[in-house]
């Protein structure tokens, strides 16, 4: 599905990621964990095309996309849920969701299951996106990313600043879309228990490099815990 190899990423002149290798197999959930400031979010932004990536390769179903602008990558089927959600604050919930349809290139309708999964999208359809609470914005952001029926969904800290009951719902939603729609998921998190529950693979990142990777069912939780706190 998604195959990143030898990729460097820069913020301005400073290199944040050094030769990243990462793979998201078809239909799997991959978690990328690590301490703050280790380049996890930057890795996602590089995949989305929002930061400079002068060398390396990002392949989506075998197609090289590293030179493509972000809007082309979205059209190729990458759905992005950024840290901080980035809901368009001045637009209504319905408009935010309609924008999610744009990568399809035509006027369509968001799939029904999104409304069932996140009832707040329908209930607050005419409210301004900026007036929703953090948890509601997170649900809208995921719904918006799913509207275009992406092949892969990338989520940046979806549990950050969100109350436990909604975290559960979001975890369930991620599992559900992965199982029923076959959408691959790449998720960046600090909340280790959350990802161990939903992910198939786990990567640990440190100073822009992957220092540990494993199948979740074989992973050494104590070791990951240690890598993330030390």
């Amino acid at each position, binding site marked *: 599905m998604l195959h990143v190899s030898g990729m460097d990423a820069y913020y301005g002149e400073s290199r944040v990621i050094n030769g990243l290798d990462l793979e998201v197999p078809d239909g799997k959930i991959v978690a990328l964990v690590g301490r703050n400031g280790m380049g996890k979010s930057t890795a996602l932004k590089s995949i*989305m*095309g*929002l930061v400079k990536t002068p060398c390396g390769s990002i392949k989506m179903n075998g197609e090289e996309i590293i030179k493509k*602008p*972000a*809007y082309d990558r*979205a*059209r190729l089927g990458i759905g*992005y849920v*950024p840290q901080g959600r*980035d*809901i*368009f*604050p*001045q*637009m209504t919930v319905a*408009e935010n969701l*309609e*924008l*999610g349809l*744009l*990568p*399809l*290139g035509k*006027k369509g309708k968001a799939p029904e299951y999104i409304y069932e999964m996140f009832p707040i999208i329908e209930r607050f359809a005419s409210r*301004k*996106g*900026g*007036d929703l609470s953090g948890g509601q*914005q997170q649900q809208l952001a995921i719904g*918006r990313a799913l509207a*275009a029926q992406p092949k892969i969904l990338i989520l940046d800290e979806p549990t950050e600043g969100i109350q436990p009951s909604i975290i559960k719902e979001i975890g369930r939603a991620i599992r559900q879309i992965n199982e029923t729609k076959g959408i691959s998921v790449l998720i960046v998190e600090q909340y280790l228990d959350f990802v161990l529950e939903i992910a198939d693979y786990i990567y640990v990142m440190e100073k822009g490099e992957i220092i540990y990777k494993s199948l979740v069912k074989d992973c050494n939780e104590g070791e990951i815990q240690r890598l993330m706190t030390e």
Partner: protein
Amino acid sequence: MAQFINTLFNAVSLSSIVLLTSLGLAVTFGLMRVINMAHGEFVMVGAYATYAVQNLFSAIFPKSIQPLYYFVAIPAAFAAAFALGSLLEFFIISRLYKRVVDSLLATWGISLILQQAARSIFGTQGVNVTAPPFLQGGIFIGGCTFSYNRIFIIALVGICVLSVYLIMYKSGFGKQMRAVMQNRAMAQCMGINSRMVDNVTFAIGSGLAGIAGCSVALLGSVDSTVGQNYIVNAFMAVVLGGVGKLLGTVLGASIIGSASIFAENYTSSSIAKAIVLLIVIVFLQKRPQGLFVIKNRSLDE
């Protein structure tokens, strides 16, 4: 009473012209935050485009349909300014986003170049656009005069405001435009080609200035500095109204337009300018963000 109604009509008329020139700025400055010092020159381009269409008509068409030139001139003025705006954005402005001072200086330079170009092409003497016969004269009611060309401009401004509203808030392109202006990176992640949206948005703002030029051509002679007469008022209207809000620009323009006319009526034209500036200064002291402020949980800038 009659005099008051006359003054009121003039106030509405001037407000509508200020509004037409500031509508384009509301887009380029209000939405895109580009301080385009050459905006006045897009007004000039529109005015000269009107003049060119008039001459073209009188050269090739029989007298009977010549007056219709004005209906061709409006889209022509829009198209000329739109095309020039698109080129300017592509070659210069797009490289200077987020560099406010640089883009201000660069567009000022462009303003000088365009003025000189106009002098080289059309001469230093002002040229005249003859209002078509159906826009000459006016209605007289009880000692008040309502000239047709001013009524026409007011209607034209109404149509333009409505069109901008529909484009911005009701069309698919408008949705993309607002998304790009609110959050560029995220808009790109939604599959929006933000470069294209920037270019077309800037071009639309410029095109609106072109239409403004087409209407000011009816009111006086056209020369290379015609845009300069309106640009200060236009900037004041946008800032007064609150950057980024269409309704704010409408109100801002009305306040500037009415204040100048009423002040001028009871004092002199130079005092009137001072009074308007004073109103703007005092107002912005109290409300630095203008009449309308965008308030939101997630907008903490």
